[in-house]
């Protein structure tokens, strides 16, 4: 075995060297937890990478590794990038947090950007998107559109991000219908079209007439279309899956952020140790066209969106009670980011017990 390996190595080394020489562009690298074509979280990052590549053109070379499992595999993949001359590395899953920091400590000259985490270092910055702003808007729409006053929420895993989404949605709905209720089903997967569809059916059979999801497939949207109820798209505009069902969708638009950060890394203005949490106003998320709803609901949604963008409205503004009825935010009080990022409690009106 070894002989053959070395013989091949000798003959092939030449080609490898020539291809290595071509790299004098700035290299920006991406690590994905899923597949580039997963139709959800990872694909949104891939679209963002393509956007940045197109905007920055020939000066930059972007490379991506997909389907990298969290854990030691991630650490190896990140290290491989760091060694291969990447100037900046984006690690796009929460589970890449510790591996990112471990590699960053070994390669102080490489810049790292970790999505959705909370640990930083001199050469590690974190970034995230204020998805809850979108969730608040769709919650308001649900509050107006639902006849039964109960919505269904198909959730993946109980992490703060998802809990924050649930609360944001429900608070939005309650801002227009104070008695609004929410049923939650956890499917314990980011990605199982069939199971998500089953969850949607179960929720509909129990009387919800609007569903929303924090999972990646269009399964629930298709069920909504078939059963003649309304739903919201996730990560991408899912209007094709639900032409008469989709009210709007929260779209992940990472592209502008990637462009900005890569450009900063190239001209030396990039800063480590930052925690960036952009929202609607920065374009890191956006709302798909408001469809399948009366004009007054659409006008309300647009007004809310405008208010969030100009800063006059923070979705998590009191009064808000916790699920057990105790006060979380007093009248006019605005939640701090720390509480949101580590959220592990429901607000009043959720018909579910949060797994602790």
């Amino acid at each position, binding site marked *: 075995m070894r002989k053959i390996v070395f013989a091949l190595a000798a003959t092939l080394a030449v*080609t*490898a060297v020539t291809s290595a020489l071509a790299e004098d562009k700035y290299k920006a690298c991406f690590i994905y937890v899923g597949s580039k074509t997963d139709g959800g979280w990872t694909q949104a990052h891939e679209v963002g990478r393509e956007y940045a590549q197109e905007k920055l053109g020939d000066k930059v070379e972007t490379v991506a590794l997909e389907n990298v499992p969290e854990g030691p595999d991630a650490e190896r993949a990140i290290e491989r990038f760091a060694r291969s001359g990447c100037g900046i590395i984006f690690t796009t899953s929460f589970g890449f947090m510790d591996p990112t920091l471990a590699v960053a400590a070994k390669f102080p000259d490489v810049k790292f950007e970790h999505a959705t985490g909370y640990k930083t270092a001199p050469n590690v910055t974190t970034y995230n998107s204020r998805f809850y702003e979108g969730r608040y808007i769709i919650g308001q729409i649900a509050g107006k559109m639902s006849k039964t006053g109960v919505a269904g929420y198909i959730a993946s895993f109980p992490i703060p991000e998802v809990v924050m989404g649930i609360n944001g949605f429900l608070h939005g709905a309650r801002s227009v219908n104070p008695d609004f209720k929410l049923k939650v089903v956890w499917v314990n997967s980011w990605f199982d079209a069939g199971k998500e569809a089953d969850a949607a059916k179960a929720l509909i059979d129990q009387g919800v007439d609007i569903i929303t999801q924090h999972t990646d497939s269009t399964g629930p949207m298709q069920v909504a279309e078939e059963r003649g109820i309304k739903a919201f798209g996730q990560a991408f505009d899912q209007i094709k899956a639900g032409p008469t069902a989709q009210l709007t969708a929260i779209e992940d638009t990472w592209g502008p952020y990637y462009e900005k950060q890569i450009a900063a890394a190239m001209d030396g203005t990039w800063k480590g140790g930052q925690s960036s949490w952009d929202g609607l106003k920065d374009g890191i998320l956006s709302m798909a066209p408001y469809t399948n709803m009366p004009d007054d609901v659409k006008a309300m949604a647009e007004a809310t969106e405008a208010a969030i963008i100009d800063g006059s409205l923070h979705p998590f503004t009191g009064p808000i009670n916790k699920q057990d009825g105790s006060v979380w935010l007093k009248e006019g009080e605005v939640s701090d980011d720390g509480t949101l990022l*580590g959220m592990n409690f429901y607000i009043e009106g959720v018909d579910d017990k949060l797994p602790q």
Partner: protein
Amino acid sequence: MRIELQKRPTPSALYAVLSPFIALGLTLIAGAIMFTILGKNPVDALYSFFIEPLTEVWSIHELTVKAAPLILIAVGLSVCYRSNNWNIGAEGQFIMGGILGSLVPILMPGFQSWLTLPLMLLLGMAGGAAWGAIPAFLKTRFNTNEILVSLMLVYTAQLFLDWLARGVLRDPNGNNFPGSIRFPSAAQLPEIMPSQGSAHYGIFLAIIAAVIIWFMLSFTLNGFQVRVLGANPRAGRFAGFSQTRMTYFAFLLSGGLAGLAGIAEVSGAIGQLRETISPGYGFTAIIVAFLGRLSPLGAIAAGFMLALTYLGGEAAQMTLGISDKVGRVFQGLLLFFVLGCDTLINYQVRLVLRKAAPAAGGQG
């Protein structure tokens, strides 16, 4: 066209050595064709698959990190399969081992002595063995099929770990994200040469286990029992060997080694208990066990080979933009060729081009 096999009187020693190389040759040809069709330079692609991961020291370290759990699990499975016990739930046993071993540093973070690590490893083995004992118990007591039970217990273990890592074992200072505290250094399986790369002592555990089990199989009565009961259960019973005892032995051993692999992975490679600790090692190790021809020493070679294809797939993705899916197809092709070529050891293979005289008798 037909393929005809003729059994050799004795397995061919020549082909036993040669068949992996023939398989490699065929894979290289098939791979070259595939990459050319996909518009990639086949030489570059094959280089990054098989050689690039071996050209740097740190990458060889990574190879051992990836190979260690595969070998450790496959060694146990080799014994299990040889004795005709079908444990396909090593993934679950791996997870339970990881969980039980992790309880030491998570529940007693202050307990940091030279005893910490051995205790964790022992508990890891116990956890895996206990999870493996369930299908063994149900098989011997209630005659329940072990394939189904061991497989179902994988999903159960995965969900149990998920619940623990998000709930009771969660790091209280972890911002409510899943995952336990980082283990203190006394609870981490050390790296062998930290300055060079991240290989940890798990690979030694794997090789030691392989050698011990190989010795046991080759030279002890217990090993003899495994081989006899596996090859011919009736003969084994006549010789007075207990099938029940053998089932327990096979499951406890393979479960225990899978559990050891689990805790070695958690404490050596990850450093904390996470909501997922295995990218399917327990299933991949089944392939490793058979690629290694159910021999513990063969598992070492096979484990490294499979690990190499994972690293190679990554290298090909990075340097040539060959997608991960193409990498997996290539990996599948390689496995097919290796499995197919092993036929040469026991059989002479002839291609018969003309239609043979019709065989007499019943049709389906």
